[in-house]
């Protein structure tokens, strides 16, 4: 989790160099969702993500170098620089696809679960989505289909209260997100998305159920993004959300929460934390250097791979 945080903070820091020339949607503040869920998974389980894909990709052990190279637009990126930050994937790690159009990957994830069902294999698919995604019809269409076919899939909704700069209350009526699943007889749970241990615990339970043919599930994780919707900065100044709200959530920063838990339970201390940070930062810096040094794709490659 700290690893992801540090990666994204370095992206934020270096973004102003104008060398990462594509949109970036940072998950800073939301990492517990990605980590809590993905830590419960095995390598064979698959995840599908959205425009905000960094944390999911990394939590599922997607290759950091390939991710950064992709954001830097380099040929060594996971898409050879063709997709940018919203298309991250790493098949070998089970990060099957990230898709920039809101909700578009929900159906793909459902297809992945259908595949497992037909093959009678036991891996589970995770479909990451945001609170905005549930407004797209395809979300409901997918849940209905998963429900009739009892597919081994968990739809994980990270409710960060906003779609771009618009608050949930302007986009959806007041009701629990669980009702969205229940409309399709999909068992639904909502919980604190900033507590990585809790998220992990619940995910493990749901995975077991999925493997017993008791899927699908809808898991809603309440959380908050610290930075702007897209880009490296804080944006409390532009007026769509209050400083108070921000501070409230900042206190619940998942890294902080987890650190406290570690200190309480495992005699972890500040020094351990600093050491960990340092060693991670080192590793991360190497990856950044790799990405920066990698070559831009040659224009002549542009016409390749249109057809299989």
């Amino acid at each position, binding site marked *: 989790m700290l690893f992801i945080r540090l990666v994204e903070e370095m992206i934020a820091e270096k973004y102003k160099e104008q060398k990462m020339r594509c949109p970036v949607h940072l998950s800073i503040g939301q990492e517990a969702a990605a980590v809590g869920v993905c830590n419960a998974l095995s390598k064979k389980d698959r995840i*599908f993500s959205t425009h905000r894909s960094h944390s999911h990709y990394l939590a599922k052990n997607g290759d950091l170098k390939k991710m950064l190279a992709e954001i830097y637009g380099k040929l060594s990126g996971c*898409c*050879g620089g*063709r*997709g940018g930050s919203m*298309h991250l*994937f790493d*098949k070998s790690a089970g990060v*099957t*696809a990230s*898709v920039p*159009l809101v909700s*578009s990957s*929900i*159906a*793909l*994830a*459902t*297809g*992945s679960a*259908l*595949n497992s*069902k*037909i093959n009678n294999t036991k891996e589970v698919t995770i479909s990451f989505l945001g609170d905005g995604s549930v407004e797209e*019809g*395809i979300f409901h*269409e*997918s849940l*209905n*289909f998963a429900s*009739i*076919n009892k597919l081994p899939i968990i739809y994980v909704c990270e409710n960060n209260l906003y779609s771009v700069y618009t608050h949930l209350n302007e986009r959806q009526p007041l009701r629990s997100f669980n009702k969205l699943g229940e409309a399709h007889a999909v068992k639904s749970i909502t919980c604190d998305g900033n507590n990585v241990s809790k998220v992990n615990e619940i995910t493990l339970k749901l995975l077991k159920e999925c493997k017993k043919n008791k899927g699908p599930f809808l898991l809603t994780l309440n959380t908050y993004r610290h930075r702007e919707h897209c880009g490296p900065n804080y944006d409390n100044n532009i007026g769509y959300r209050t400083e108070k709200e921000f501070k409230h959530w900042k206190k619940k920063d998942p890294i902080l929460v987890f650190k406290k838990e570690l200190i309480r339970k495992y005699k972890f201390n500040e020094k351990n934390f600093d050491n960990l940070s340092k060693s991670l930062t080192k590793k991360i810096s190497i990856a950044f250097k790799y990405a920066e040094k990698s070559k831009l794709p040659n224009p002549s490659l542009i016409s*390749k*791979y*249109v*057809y*299989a």
Partner: protein
Amino acid sequence: MPKKKNKTKQRIIPGSEAIREGLIEAAKKDRNVIFQAEGVSDPSSVYGTTKNLEKIFNKKRIIEMPLSENAMTGVAIGASFLGKRPIISLHRVEFALLALEQIINNAAKSHYTSMGQHSVPIVIRLIVGRGWGQGPEHSQSLENLFSMIPGLKVITPTFPADAKGMIISAIEDNNPVVVIEHRWCHYIKGHVPNKYYKSQIKEPIKIKNGKDVTIVANSLNVIECLFVAKILKKYKINIDLFDLRVCRPLELGKIKKSVKKTGKLITVDLGSKILGIGSEIVSEITSSCFNYLKKPPIRIGMPDYPTPSSRGYLKNHYPDKRKIINELSKLFPIIKKNYKSIMIEIDKESKKLPIDVPDPSFKGPF
């Protein structure tokens, strides 16, 4: 299309059965083939084309689709990322309009964006609903819409044997293939070999050899052109007639060769004339055969308005024998001279069936 070998053993079946055979053969050969449709195993089974599949294959491979065209297309794409070869069948082309985000973004581009790491071997069968008062939203063909999109393949089979082979090729293909099936072509009967075989889905096929004019048509329009070719032969006009078959990728090598010989080109589009496949063909041919063209190329296609329900409106609506003759008469004075008798012959043929049914056996209701 394999050569006919044994005349005595010819099985004559309609296009819809040929397509069903293609689906079955391909699914027998590759267990990754799965079927999705609304009413996939219902008593009608997509005009009979998916009939009794559940008796031949594991039920898990036959997937009843809720009325969720968009998600179900995404489901097919997602499953195809993992090795499945889904075939989606929709009763009307228009239902795919709900799924275009999935088709244009995820299906067409995933192979490209992933540098070939993903592929999307899905087949999307779309049926043109022409006839019996289907009206403006149940009778479009829209092959030009799909053909605009790099990464898709778009095919429009005409004859049964070719249709079977093309369907098998489409299923074997590692790209998303959109099949525009004209339901009137489902009624066309012909010999269809009783085995697994492929017909290429790369380029047009010449179905008549002639030196006077090149005509490129597809799907039902090929039948209209064949009739025209028959009549005009009597007047010593020989058409170099192509069944286009494949709208994307558009491989025009054979057509170019033909136009260099004939100097004249007519395209007959299933869908709209404006921004139709014919527009692309004419532009391309004009560019590469400019000095060979004796006359400006001519496009025939659906006019620039929707197709109303009532047969009352439809007399001069579809590209048909009459329209083709009219355009040809601009190129050949002999047609003008014999216009009346040609039209009488056409009238005779046209009156055999009302304008809104594909076959005498057709009695509605949809």
